[in-house]
């Protein structure tokens, strides 16, 4: 989905030399050289808004993270005493209670993200490959598969919370009463099973997005490739391996990154499933920071954790983009 930066990148060199011979040689494209104020006026509203909703809060957030910001200073946070790197030191002190809990939550979130993204991608790819050709009922199935994604998150997660109830839930009814798979009904919303519940609900909700994106990507694969390979005697499995998967690589790189960021930052699913305090096995990082900030009213500490989270995501994303050489690939395609 990183189309914008990639496709605009090659045009950078030209506008820096507006008066040069090269720019003058192209009178037909004069309106796109942009010596005028027009592009700036067009971007201005967005720029002001970005400043207001992103830049200012981020600066405030970073400043907050250096302060001893407890409930006494909420109404006048400027007066909160400085704490320097204290909040950060506590957050990364894995022997201390706060740091230990943060590390635990971070590791849980990593495991959750790998599983949830992996299964969402796998399910989306499988369904997209199976639905590539027309067959009766394809349109209906597509609408059905999209429904979990279209439902408001809180509504769909509430349904799962009901299904996972210990006494009157569908899951225990099927597993215990009907299939006799367990000795006694399991708890799904507390204890270690809550991790499984999180993964299942997250996959149920997000895999249709993977399906949507992969199906859109498949539309761009020319039919001739399949026809030619069929004439050459390639079977379906070979076509999937040699044509479909390689053609989908650029789109998969973007899809996996987007799914990773959404899943890692997810607040909605654990919050609606477990309420304000998640069980340890389902204590995802967003919930953890929320609790540290709003339940114990330690905003300084919560801000430091947020900044650490952001730094982690920036590093991972940068490494990922460099590793997949996403931008280079995109510019050469454009």
């Amino acid at each position, binding site marked *: 989905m990183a*189309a914008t930066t990639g496709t*605009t990148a090659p045009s950078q060199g030209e506008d820096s030399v507006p008066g040069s011979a090269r720019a003058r040689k192209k009178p037909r494209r004069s309106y796109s*050289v942009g010596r005028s104020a027009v592009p700036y006026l067009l971007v201005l509203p967005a720029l002001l808004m970005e400043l207001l909703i992103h830049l200012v809060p981020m600066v405030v*957030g970073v400043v907050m993270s250096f302060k001893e910001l407890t409930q006494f200073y909420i109404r006048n946070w400027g007066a909160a005493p400085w704490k320097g790197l204290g909040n950060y030191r506590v957050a990364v002190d894995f022997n201390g209670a706060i740091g230990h809990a943060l590390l635990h939550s971070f590791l849980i979130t990593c495991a959750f993200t790998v599983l949830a993204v992996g299964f969402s991608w796998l399910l989306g790819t499988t369904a997209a490959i199976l639905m590539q050709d027309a067959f009766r009922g394809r349109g209906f199935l597509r609408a059905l598969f999209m429904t979990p994604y279209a439902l408001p998150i809180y509504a769909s997660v509430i349904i799962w919370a009901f299904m996972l109830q210990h006494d009157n839930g569908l899951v225990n009814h099927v597993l215990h009463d009907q299939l006799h798979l367990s000795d006694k009904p399991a708890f799904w919303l507390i204890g270690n099973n809550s991790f499984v519940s999180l993964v299942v609900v997250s996959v149920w909700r997000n895999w249709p997005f993977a399906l949507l994106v992969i*199906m859109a990507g498949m539309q761009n694969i020319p039919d001739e490739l*399949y026809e030619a390979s069929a004439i050459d005697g390639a079977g379906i499995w070979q076509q999937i391996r040699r044509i479909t998967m390689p053609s989908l690589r650029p789109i998969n790189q973007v899809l996996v990154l987007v799914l990773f960021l959404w899943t890692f930052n997810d607040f*909605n699913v654990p919050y609606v499933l477990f309420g304000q305090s998640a069980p340890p096995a389902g204590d995802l990082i967003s919930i953890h920071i929320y609790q540290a900030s709003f339940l114990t009213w330690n905003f300084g500490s919560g801000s430091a954790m947020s900044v650490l989270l952001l730094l982690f995501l920036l590093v991972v994303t940068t490494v990922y983009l460099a590793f997949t050489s996403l931008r280079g690939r995109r510019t050469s395609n454009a």
Partner: protein
Amino acid sequence: MPSGYRSPTAKPMSFIWTRRIVLTLIAIFAALPVYVMISTSLKPLQDVTGKFQWIPGHLTLRPYVDIWHTVPLARYFVNSTIVSAAATGLSVLIAVFAAYAVSRYKFKGKRIFTITVLSTQMFPGILFLLPLFLIFVNIGNATGIALYGSRAGLIITYLTFSLPFSIWMLAGYMESIPKGLDEAAMVDGCGPLGALFRVVIPAAVPGIVAVAVYAFMTAWSEVLFASVMTNETTRTLAVGLRGYSTQYDVYWNQVMAASLVVSVPVVAGFLLLQRYLVTGLTAGAVK
């Protein structure tokens, strides 16, 4: 949808049977919670508190009447509609101009602008929640303008995710519209704004619709900001549905009926406009 079909190189029976079995299993997984929602919403409370029943023993529409009295659902509905619509409208409006500039002009700082917009996409909501909360509280103390707890305040916080997304998607979509179209309009005497309104926007309708639907859905679903930034009168559906759980009982049948009622507008909109969404995604994101 005719696109995506490919010439029928006949599939072996093994593939067709694999397809039938796997797609059936996935369909059950996808549909199960939807079935639970619908069937539970039609049961009386005593049938919901005991063992789960696959087939409702006694059908009733009572929960659909009660949901409006147990919690002020209508008010939450109005709040959610106003907040989601305003956040969507505002971000699409601002994004159309910015996306047009990014897709059509070269200007200094463009790269920084696009990278900034792109990267704010990945920031966790919690990162903005704490500072915005403090800023709103302090603005309220200093000026008396109550942003914290107000709909306006919630709309502003929703722009943190809907605006970058809208700019990003629309810029990608507009890139796919041939530049010759608006260049011709300019030659015919349109100004940049004329070309935008007469040529680019009409051509970008599928992209704009996709972005608007998506932004609306995201706002309608939002839980984090809504649970912190609202009060009793401005509460949205996302928080309001919790009202069906009391200290003693959870009215699961009403919870399901209310979930269904709040889902119908967005699911219907999504399924109706799915076609546009795929087009928008293909051009804007996948290109």
